[in-house]
């Protein structure tokens, strides 16, 4: 299971890439592999605001729908529209397929997230 260096991770299997005050959020390789073939991603809209832990969207595999939980509080500034037409990209390239970008409102929440090596341990336990 691929875990990328330089990213933050949540126990709910989201990854976070920080650029300045902006955070890109997607789901991990472990998550996409557990879900199987992804056929739909439901995303929020730009300007929607969330608190850490809120569900911000849904990812659906052939079999089931699963909520997406936002690991950081913030306001959506970009949505990856590409996934609406090609949700399978999340399977092919989970770390390239960010779902939303937010402007963080509580940057210190980053310290609640996992490092790549800690996240690897979470995956090992659940696998």
């Amino acid at each position, binding site marked *: 299971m691929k875990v990328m260096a330089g990213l933050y991770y949540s126990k709910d299997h989201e990854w976070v890439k920080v650029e300045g005050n902006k955070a890109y959020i997607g789901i991990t390789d472990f998550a996409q592999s557990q879900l*199987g*073939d992804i*056929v*739909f991603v*439901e995303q929020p809209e730009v300007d929607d605001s969330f608190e850490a832990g809120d569900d911000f969207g*849904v990812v*659906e*595999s*052939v*079999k*089931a*729908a699963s909520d997406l939980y936002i690991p950081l509080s913030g306001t959506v500034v970009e949505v990856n529209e590409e996934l*609406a037409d090609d949700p399978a990209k999340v399977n092919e390239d989970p770390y390239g397929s960010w779902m939303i970008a937010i402007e963080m409102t509580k940057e210190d929440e980053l310290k609640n997230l996992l490092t790549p090596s800690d996240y690897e341990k979470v995956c090992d336990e659940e696998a």
Partner: protein
Amino acid sequence: MENSKKTPLFTVYEKHKGKLIDFGGWAMPVQFEGIIPEHEAVRSNAGLFDVSHMGEVEIKGKDALNFVQYLITNDASQMEKNQIIYSFMCYENGGVVDDLLVYKFEEDYFYLVINAGNIEKDYEWMLKQSTAYDVEVNNISNDVSELALQGPKAEKILQKLTETDLSQLQFFYLQRDVTIDGVNCLISRTGYTGEDGFEIYVNPSDAVQLWEKLLEVGQEDGLKPIGLGARDTLRFEAALPLYGHEINRDITPLEAGFGFAVKLKKEVDFLGKKALIEQKEAGLTRKLVGFEMKDRGIPRSDYEVYHQGEKIGFVTTGYFSPTLKRNIGLALIDAKYAELGNEVDILIRKKQVKAELISKTFYKKNYKK
């Protein structure tokens, strides 16, 4: 999953990287490689399913035919030896106890194949109904394993392992004592995927050998092991009902549109006959319909269906269809809205999303007639 029941093939799932789920108390593989590639393999080549969790009940004795006739909605009286029919077993009120396949071995010997989650319930129901008949009712589910080999290349693959001429076996007929890879089997030209194929019944101790051998000889023809996930998308595209979804104790076979397996003109009385005749005469108030999503969103079982703000029914099964590449579903709705082309709304996570009623023939079945 530790307490779940396991089929004799449980040991081979790991080797083929099967992802396990609990299905009606059984630990079964939901997928191996992935639902979409597995679904496509069955439509274009062939797939191998472990369906050993299904139940088998023998009905033997002088009154076997009469008892089967009383138990089921279809008509077994015209069956030839070695023929199979699909049927429902109903409660007095017309609701469904289970759907099943009826195999006729001899005039006094039938074999009923029932759903895994219903084995105990069905068996008790059959025993309770059998008291006035001179029959023996045996639940032999634990003594039988079942593999399903499905897809356009199924015959070609199975033929490699047997001297029996499979081209002579017609759709919905069976043959007993067929030797496959040296193993004694009962085979039938049946299945639940919308494709040609076979169901193979063997002694549990022979199941692993047969599974491995079939995968080995079928590899060059694209044969793959298939999980329950693709089994469901395949049967759904072919508009074949699943117990607990399209039919259950609260939905009659007539409402679900499977009247072809309900012979109301059958001379003898059968369980549910009176209620079903009354329902038909009064006119159906609910109907099972097919629909396609017009807006984005995937319909799922139990999602509510609306028409101009009024709730008119619920989704029984819905998926992204791997063959059609569209989001489609089956729904049980108020009959007055059931016309093809009608627009309805599906409530997906608090939002009503547009759908259009279309024919339930999502996928044209590819049976060998």
